[in-house]
């Protein structure tokens, strides 16, 4: 027990250290990539300001800065003619969209409550809404994985090996997901929003991973007309996409976890098995258990492959291995 615990602590320590290293490396790379772009942007903005001031020489810097500060800080787009002021940022459909981004924790931030009452309500709304959202997404995710289960069963009936089924279902899940949730919507956004294809992919990914910077938001271009259920469609896409991404991240986490656990567990089992084998001579049962334990631990879709695997085992070995 002691060596296992020590190695567990070592593992955690390595994991923590690795995580911090990952953060530091990311910071360094972001800095390298973005610093120059930011400098250029600042220079361009300063030049534009200079040019503007020069063409209107009686405008003092202080006055203009005062004016700009108010407009920037308040985030209300003061540009535009009178007809635009009829569309509010807080009409029902926009508020619904905001409520959805809060509850799914995407949180774009282009729209945010400014009154104290709005902020307090936002806190309580999120408090109950986020767990509700989690339960909801979990259920939707289960529905998605049922599709893959059916595929796995179909393939198994064709007589494929378990590992191949596992690999193929994972590939299928990944490929169709990327197609349906990332590629196709990006094409759609290219048409409706006028973004480039890579910007569409960037937006799709940032939204579905719930990072939600808010630099790209749907339905916010002032000079475009959107068809009436545009935002509802986008909301449905976000919902299913979130469930898919959550399952995807799970898989990756399980792969990371299980790869090390398989190795450890199998080594333990082999050790135990050889001892047991020597004592009792139950060779076949032991190897069967080893195979089963390894498969169980390496299951990516534990509900999928282990059910079908167990059924197969039960059919073939059920009557023979009573001791298991």
């Amino acid at each position: 027990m002691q060596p296992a615990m020590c190695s567990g602590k070592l593992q955690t320590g390595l994991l923590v250290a690795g995580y911090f290293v990952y953060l530091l490396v990311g910071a360094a790379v972001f800095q390298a990539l973005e610093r120059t772009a930011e400098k250029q942007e600042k220079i361009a903005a300063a030049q534009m300001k200079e040019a503007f001031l020069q063409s209107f020489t009686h405008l003092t810097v202080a006055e203009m800065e005062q004016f700009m500060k108010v407009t920037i800080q308040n985030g209300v787009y003061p540009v535009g003619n009178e007809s635009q002021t009829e569309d509010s940022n807080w009409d029902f459909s926009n508020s619904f969209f905001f409520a959805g981004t809060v509850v799914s924790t995407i949180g774009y931030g282009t729209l945010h409550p400014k009154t104290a009452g709005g902020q307090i309500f936002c806190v309580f709304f999120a408090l109950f809404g986020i767990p509700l959202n989690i339960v909801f997404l979990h259920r939707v995710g289960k529905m998605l994985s049922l599709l893959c289960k059916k595929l796995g069963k179909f393939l198994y009936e064709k007589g494929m090996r378990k590992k191949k089924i596992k690999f193929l279902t994972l590939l299928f899940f990944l490929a169709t997901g990327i197609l349906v949730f990332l590629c196709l919507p990006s094409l759609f956004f290219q048409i409706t929003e006028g973004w480039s294809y890579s910007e569409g992919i960037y937006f799709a990914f940032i939204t579905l991973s719930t990072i939600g910077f808010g630099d790209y938001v749907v339905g916010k271009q002032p000079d475009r007309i959107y068809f009436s259920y545009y935002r509802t469609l986008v909301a449905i896409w976000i919902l299913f996409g979130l469930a898919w991404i959550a399952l995807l991240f799970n898989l990756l986490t399980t792969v990371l976890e299980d790869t090390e656990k398989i190795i450890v567990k199998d080594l333990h089992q082999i050790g135990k098995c050889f001892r047991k084998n020597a004592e009792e001579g139950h060779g076949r049962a032991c190897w069967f258990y080893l195979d089963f334990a390894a498969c169980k631990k390496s299951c990516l879709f534990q509900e999928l492959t282990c059910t079908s695997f167990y059924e197969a085992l039960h059919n073939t070995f059920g009557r023979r291995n009573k001791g298991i």
Partner: protein
Amino acid sequence: MLQSLAGSSCVRLVEQHRSAWCFALLVLGYLLYLVFGAVVFSSVELPYEDLLRQELGKLKQRFLEEHACLSEQQLEQFLMRVLEASNYGVSVLSNASGNWNWDFTSSLFFASTVLSPRGYGHTVPLSDGGKAFCIIYSVIGIPFTLLFLTAVVQRIIVYVTRRPVLYFHIRWGFSKQVVAIIHAIVLGFITVSCFFLIPAAIFSVLEDDWNFLESFYFCFISLSTIGLGDYVPGEGYNQKFRELYKIGITCYLLLGLIAMLVVLETFCELHELKKFRKLFYVKKDKEEDQVHIMEHDQLSFSSISDQAASMKDDQKANEPFVTSQSPTSNDSSLNN
């Protein structure tokens, strides 16, 4: 024999339908909740926005009148450019030019907001390379974060919850349920005060124009990983010790997230909540001798998927819907 078979299939049918009814109720409840939120936000914020728009309109009119040589179109072009730059985090005001968004500590802060997916949006990658790297970085980084958080929370839970509960259960002789509930509530209070109230007080002092409510609002929005980005600390003009401040905030947010997950896990281990949760999950058709192994698999898969989904979470004592399950299955496999 036939009766029991028929009985069991009837029960299964009812249970299947019960699960379906529960799901329908869940969908309806979710939509109603969103509608309710929309109505309240709209009614609270709309009047204020109206006022603001009118104010800004008047300000713009006055500005144009005072400087008659300025045409409206020219001003609008200028403002559009300025607002666009401001959305990317670049400010054109002269006293803000000292703040860089991409020095090392700010990049570190940015990286941490990407990985614990908050994404404030006060700084965003401007270059194409930055955007592409952001995607790749988070595809690897977010599962890494999940793994990291799961491992750390599991270790901490043993010392913070399981051992004390066991200790008090043995020492004082109360039932395990009662001790667990009391412990959970006390832990919740301690976490709220340490990670919400005290940091909110600190932020309201350190940030110039944040009052206590706004600081608390910031803490909540950040620790629940919503990350709206309307309040971001360390962005004030001429912030002293900006680098150290940013690093401190990064550490606080990371620790806060871990603390949230620990509290959530503690609450999920309460027996009553487990029963309540099972209402919403699909009941599997299982034969008798498959029960134990299926339970094991189901628990471990859904515990990981729940912990993944519950990266967004909260801390209140009386929340009705909690989902992440205790990693008892992982524990038992460790003890094997």
